[in-house]
């Protein structure tokens, strides 16, 4: 299976000395626009065999660090930025502001 990888290195803010580093998000190239992806991460500099499953529609990771509250919190805090990086990589034209036509000043002008 060909994999499409979105680089996360240096893009996800974490506290100084954090044990976790988010490396990249992987998607199956043939299923690029499906809502599912896999977050690859390292602990203490070592990439882990298994990733964290991500549902981009629901904005959730389906795997949790149930025995490590600190890691879990760092993952939850990083999630919005990870999703943003993925969205910008897959849909670069969406990164713009909403069209002015729909601003409250012009909508349904009386």
């Amino acid at each position: 299976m060909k994999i499409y990888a979105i680089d996360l290195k240096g893009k996800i803010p974490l506290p100084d000395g954090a044990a976790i580093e988010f490396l990249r998000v992987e998607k199956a190239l043939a299923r690029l626009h499906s809502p599912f992806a896999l977050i690859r991460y390292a602990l203490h500099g070592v990439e882990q065999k298994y990733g964290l499953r991500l549902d981009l529609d629901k904005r959730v990771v389906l795997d949790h660090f149930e025995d490590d509250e600190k890691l879990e919190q760092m993952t939850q805090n990083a999630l919005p930025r990870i999703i943003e990086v993925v969205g910008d990589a897959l849909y670069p034209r969406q990164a713009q502001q909403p069209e002015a036509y729909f601003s409250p000043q012009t909508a349904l002008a009386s």
Partner: protein
Amino acid sequence: MPIFYRGAGVGTYWHQHDARLTGFVPKAPTIVSSMDRIMQHVARGSISSPYISLTRSYGVAWSYALEVGLELPAENSPAYVYEIELENPLPEGLHLIDPVKKVIVTASSPLAPITYQHDGLPNFLIGVVDPDGMRKFLDEFAPQPPPARGTPRRANLTIELETIVRSLRDAEILAVGYVPAASIRQRIDVYL
């Protein structure tokens, strides 16, 4: 007899445990089912749940199996799709919930001041369905009637509406209780 499916990505619980031998059990069977639990499960991906997610769509199960694993499958390490056939009446101790019907039945009356419905532009729903690809529709301001128009804001999105949309996405049916091994007809290997 209706056929349901469940995908099992590589490395997940039902990939490592053969449901053809054990049947399916939920992660948290002692939690009491409720409307809030259903919405948390479907719309928020809550893992501590009394539900087993099934789908009427082989394609949805195939997608979960391929893409919702702890690593991507290959020919020598495939993911699985389970095929489940349930008879009517259902096996003792098992019942099924259609989350869409459940939300609609329990949603407020059309006359209630608070509703599951959004108050944005017609394209808003496209943004809910695809919050990355159609993100701009989520970000649009919700027009309000003149003259004051109130605080500029985006459209209301309730967890009820999210539950409906996500449940439709996955053709999802929730099983409560125990899906017996005898109901599992086959386990199909899948990989790209």
